């Protein structure tokens, strides 16, 4: 039965604009969908391969900056700019991942080293004023256009962005789903179970950890490409440890052991501060409390309450 949940959810999501009237509701859901995509891609690395990465915000932020800079300053076409952005993210992930996995850094050490790399990249962004405008961030005014039979359509307006965000989520979800359903997912599971055991069962642990890290990071980059253009604003905060933590909270809240859990986590955590009116400080307190509560009380998350874990295969 649970197999059909994502499909039913997609059908509901496609039909939702028929019922949603207010632009602010659209905005919340759009943010939720984009952040849910980030959470889904993060869970490929964390929940399915067992690696606690703090690099996710960096991948997300770097891609956001590169697309925005290429489009705003160099007048590139948005869709073309996605290419170099994702290629850069892939290269960064490849280098960072290769270093960490070659030296067999695990758990805490992997977390610390990815955090260190992420901070270094953030410092470059903060201090490279001439290109990134430093701590002030950059406004993104350009609007990507989509080809249509009746001429190009600008990606603007709550409704259009809602569907764009949904498309990003679907792409992320389907890529992860395809990867996990294939032999690669089995290798990831073997690594999460026990690296040594995986290796003796013929799994190239280094290669598959790297693969997981790169795929997850590139997908985070994909979300970043769109995110900047949706908000119209990019700041170094996108690459911060706090951003990585928000993603981790979403994944834990939704449930680490499934692909769909993080979607719920992302939507719920994004909507929560809007449903109950909260100041920024209270929102952070709430996030912290949720993180702790989920770990101590419901380690399988919201979706885990309904579903038997099937994530290994």
């Amino acid at each position, binding site marked *: 039965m649970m197999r059909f949940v994502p499909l039913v959810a997609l059908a509901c999501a496609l039909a939702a604009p028929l019922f949603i009237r207010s632009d602010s509701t659209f905005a919340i859901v759009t943010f939720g969908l984009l952040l849910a995509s980030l959470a889904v891609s993060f869970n490929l690395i964390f929940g399915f391969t067992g690696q606690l990465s703090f690099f996710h915000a960096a991948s997300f932020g770097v891609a956001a900056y590169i697309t925005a800079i290429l489009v705003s300053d160099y007048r590139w076409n948005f869709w073309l700019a996605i290419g170099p952005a994702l290629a850069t993210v892939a290269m960064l992930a490849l280098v960072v991942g290769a270093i960490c996995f070659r030296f067999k850094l695990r758990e805490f050490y992997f977390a610390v080293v990815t955090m260190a790399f992420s901070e270094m990249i953030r410092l470059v962004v903060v201090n490279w004023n001439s290109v990134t405008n430093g701590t002030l961030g950059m406004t993104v005014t350009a609007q990507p256009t989509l080809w249509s039979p009746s001429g190009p359509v600008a990606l603007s307006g709550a409704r259009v962005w809602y569907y764009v965000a949904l498309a990003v989520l679907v792409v992320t979800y389907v890529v992860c789903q395809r990867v996990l359903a294939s032999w690669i997912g089995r290798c990831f599971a073997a690594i999460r179970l026990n690296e040594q055991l995986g290796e003796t069962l013929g799994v190239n642990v280094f290669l598959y950890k790297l693969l997981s890290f790169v795929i997850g990071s590139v997908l985070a980059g994909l979300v970043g490409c769109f995110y900047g253009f949706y908000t119209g604003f990019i700041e170094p905060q996108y690459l911060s440890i706090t951003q990585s933590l928000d993603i981790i909270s979403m994944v834990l809240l939704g449930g680490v052991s499934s692909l769909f859990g993080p979607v719920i986590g992302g939507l719920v955590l994004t909507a929560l501060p809007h449903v109950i009116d909260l100041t920024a400080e209270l929102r952070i307190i709430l996030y912290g409390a949720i*993180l702790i509560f989920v770990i101590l009380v419901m380690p399988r998350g919201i979706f885990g309450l309904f579903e038997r874990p099937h994530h290994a295969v």
Partner: protein
Amino acid sequence: MIQLIIGQLLNGAIVGSLYGIVALGITLTFGITGIVNFALGAFMMLGAYFTWYGYELIGLPYPIAVIVAVLLVATLGLVADLGLFRFTRNNLVNGLLVSIGLISIIEASVLLTWTSTPKDLSYVLPGSLRVGGILLPKIKLAVFAVLLLVIASTYLALTRTWIGRAAFAYAQNPEAAALMGVKTNRLQTIVTVYSTALAGLGGALYASLYSLEPTIGAYYVLKAVESAILAGIGNTIGALVGGIIIGISEGIGSVFLPTAFRDAYGMLFLVLILLFKPSGLLGSK
């Protein structure tokens, strides 16, 4: 120039010993409970704010304000241990995430209560000593001395007292220590609370030197983790040495290298250590 460098050396050593005292807590907690407690940074920040509140707003004498702040922080540490960390022992990832959740809560609570406006203590101990043409502020010397004293006595306590030896034995071999009658749970609680108290003291002393902001905790705990890793996790005296090395290299580094990337050098150094000598600079392997 010489004057500048000596000044930076002293500043580096003091900041470094502040890193060191938090790093000592990190190392002790990790050795006994298997948790890397990032929340120690938040406790340090709380220690600083409590001291500021006691000294500046209530008007307690500084030493009393420090003691009260440390006791308050230790109590909070006890609550956190019994309410949270007890359930994540020996689960590194969960412990890490819970401690990070705790940081967010404490940091945001302080923001709510005292806003992000920097707070300063009025002069606790004015005046300077002149040593060979160089002015050394008395307060910095006093803080440095207290930090050294506390870290040294912690080391002595670990090696000379029963509870210290039990902790040491436990870190080496938990099962054997349990067989020898070490009460694991109580030991873990004591060490966790002591580590929080150390962090609180670091914060209380910090308050006499620099401005208080809610973000200092996160900043200092990252440096402390760097120091602990630099020394090799589990090495008590190493935690201080590691902290001072980082403090001094930052101080000296900022004279010769662009300051904007000061934190990045530390990160890079940390990564290199972890890759090539994961047991730390002072480690045996």
